[in-house]
């Protein structure tokens, strides 16, 4: 599980079965010191409450599909929590 920041949203009305209504957000993965790492990715919002700019943590692969109400929906990244504070993570 890694840290990320929500930088945008994706709307996809035509999507694979099971993805209807799943909020899709653009997340910039972060290093431990909260600096960007790599390219942004599209993640399903497993808590359905993450807003733009928020610090989140996300899972990948199979765990991502377990993060949604309907499991085994085809997603490879999913937000599983909104971060209130990181101590020891900052610069």
């Amino acid at each position, binding site marked *: *599980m890694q840290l990320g920041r929500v930088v945008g949203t994706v709307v996809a009305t035509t999507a694979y079965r099971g993805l209807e209504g799943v909020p899709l957000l653009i997340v910039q993965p972060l290093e*431990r010191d909260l600096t960007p790492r790599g390219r942004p990715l599209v993640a399903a919002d497993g808590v359905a409450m993450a807003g733009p700019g928020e610090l989140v*943590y996300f899972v990948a692969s*199979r*765990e991502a599909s377990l993060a949604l109400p309907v499991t085994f929906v085809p997603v490879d990244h999913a937000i*599983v929590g909104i971060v209130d504070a990181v*101590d020891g*993570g900052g610069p």
Partner: protein
Amino acid sequence: MKIGRVAGTVVSTINSPVFDGRRLLLVDLLTATGEPAGGYVIAIDVVDAGPGETVLVLDEGNSARQVLEEPNGPVRAVVVGIVDELTIDGRRLL
């Protein structure tokens, strides 16, 4: 499993149920010889590891779900041990 060092904690109130009431640690991954490996993971703590401690990280979903007894939990990393001693090629590193 991987070796890591506890760098801090992550506080979260809005999260998937599997994290409720569980402590989240920020763990820097180390190489087998104890140097920083460059990556980190957020892991659920089940052994009360403290900041700065060298720990054993289980970084695989099925095992994590088994340890936490959460068959459908979207979780992958769990701190399952605190390393007291690390010896390689007869040299004690920790």
